[in-house]
C-alpha cells in the first residue's frame, strides 16, 4: 500500500475536489454533498470542493448563535479517528500531499528531530483557535469568528482566494490586509515545506492534532514483530515524522506512511487493522521466538 501512496494521495485530493469545472466558472459547488465532512484539511471555499472541511465546519457550528458545540462534526472526527487515525494525514489529506510535493524540490533538507517541542503547538491551535475562541469571543448577536480559518489556515488562500480572485473581479477587488496576512502564512509554509518535511502537519494543523490524539486507539496502525526485529534502526532513520516505530508503534506523530515497513530488512514491521490489535508483537521469551 505504501508503494502506491503518491497515487492514493492524488486520488484522494481529486475525490475531495471533484468539481473541477467550477475553477473556470469562478464559483463553488453548492450541492448537498457539502453537508458531509471530508477527512482531510480542504477548504470548502475551494471551487472544486466536494465536501465540507471538518475544522471549518466545527467553527461555523460553534460560532453560530444557535449552537455552542458540534456533535455532528466531533462525532465524524471520532469515527474517522478510530477507523483510520493519522492515516488520513499520510494518505488522504490534500494539504499534506502538497507539502510532500514541495519537499521533493531539490534543496538543502533540514531535520525536525531537535524541534519536537514544536509539535505541541498544534494542540494549542486546536484548543484555542478552533474550540474556545469561536465560542467565547462573540459579537452582539452571539456569533463567533472561525479564528483558525480566518487568521491561520493557508488552505483557504491556496484553494479559495487565489483561484476565485483570478476568475472573479469582485473577489479580487475585495482582497485586503487579511488576505495579505494569510498569503504570507501560505508562502512561509510553502518555503518551510521545501526545507522541512510536513512542517504544517507537525506543528500547526489542528486536524492532525485531533487524529494524533486518536492514533493510540485507531483500528489501523503499525505492528512490530519483536521476534523478527534485529534492532538495526533503519526504520527510525527512514521516518521523516521522527518516530521510532519499534519503541512506540502508536506514536501520535506516526502518519502511517509505511516508509518503515519498506525499510525493514527482516519484514518485522507491517500494517495491521482490527479491534484490540496492539502495535507491539512482543517477544514473550527467546524460546517463544525460536519456536516460532
Amino acid at each position, binding site marked *: 500500500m505504501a508503494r502506491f501512496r503518491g497515487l492514493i494521495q492524488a486520488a484522494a485530493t481529486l475525490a475531495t475536489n471533484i468539481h473541477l469545472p467550477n475553477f473556470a466558472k469562478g464559483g463553488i459547488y453548492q450541492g448537498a454533498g457539502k453537508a458531509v465532512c471530508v477527512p482531510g484539511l480542504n*477548504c*470548502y471555499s475551494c471551487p472544486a470542493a466536494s465536501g465540507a472541511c471538518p475544522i471549518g*465546519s466545527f467553527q461555523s457550528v460553534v460560532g453560530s448563535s444557535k*449552537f455552542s458545540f*458540534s456533535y455532528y462534526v466531533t462525532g465524524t472526527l471520532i469515527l474517522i479517528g478510530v477507523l483510520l487515525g493519522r492515516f488520513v494525514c499520510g494518505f488522504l489529506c490534500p494539504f499534506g500531499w502538497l507539502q510532500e510535493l514541495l519537499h521533493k524540490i531539490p534543496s538543502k533538507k533540514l531535520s525536525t528531530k531537535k524541534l519536537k517541542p514544536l509539535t505541541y503547538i498544534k494542540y494549542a491551535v486546536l484548543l484555542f483557535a478552533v474550540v474556545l475562541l469561536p465560542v467565547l469571543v462573540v459579537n452582539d448577536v452571539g456569533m463567533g469568528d472561525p479564528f483558525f480559518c480566518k487568521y491561520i489556515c493557508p488552505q483557504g488562500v491556496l484553494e479559495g482566494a487565489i483561484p476565485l480572485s483570478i476568475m472573479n473581479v469582485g473577489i479580487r477587488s475585495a482582497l485586503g490586509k487579511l*488576505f495579505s496576512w494569510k498569503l504570507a502564512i501560505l508562502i512561509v509554509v510553502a518555503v518551510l515545506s521545501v526545507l522541512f518535511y510536513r512542517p504544517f502537519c507537525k506543528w500547526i494543523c489542528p486536524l492532525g492534532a485531533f487524529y494524533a490524539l*486518536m492514533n493510540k486507539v485507531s483500528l489501523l496502525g503499525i505492528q512490530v514483530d519483536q521476534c523478527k526485529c534485529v534492532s538495526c534502526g533503519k526504520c527510525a532513520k527512514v521516518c521523516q515524522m521522527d518516530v521510532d516505530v519499534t519503541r512506540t508503534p502508536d506514536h501520535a506523530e506516526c502518519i502511517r506512511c509505511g516508509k518503515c515497513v519498506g525499510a525493514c530488512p527482516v519484514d518485522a514491521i507491517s500494517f495491521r487493522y482490527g*479491534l*484490540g490489535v496492539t502495535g507491539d508483537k512482543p517477544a514473550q521469551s527467546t524460546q517463544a521466538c525460536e519456536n516460532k
Partner: protein
Amino acid sequence: MLFKAVKPVVQVALLIVGITMVCFGVMRGEADAVLAKAIRLCLECIGIG
C-alpha cells in the same frame, strides 16, 4: 499492559459514541448548519471577512 486489555472496549465505545454524536447532531440540525455555511463563499477563509 492494562491499556492493551481495555483497548478493544475503548475502540468499540468510541465508535458507538461517534455514531451517536453524528446522529444527535443531524437530529438537532447541525448538518444543515454545515451545509448552509459550506455552500456559501466563506469570506473569512479566503481572507475577505
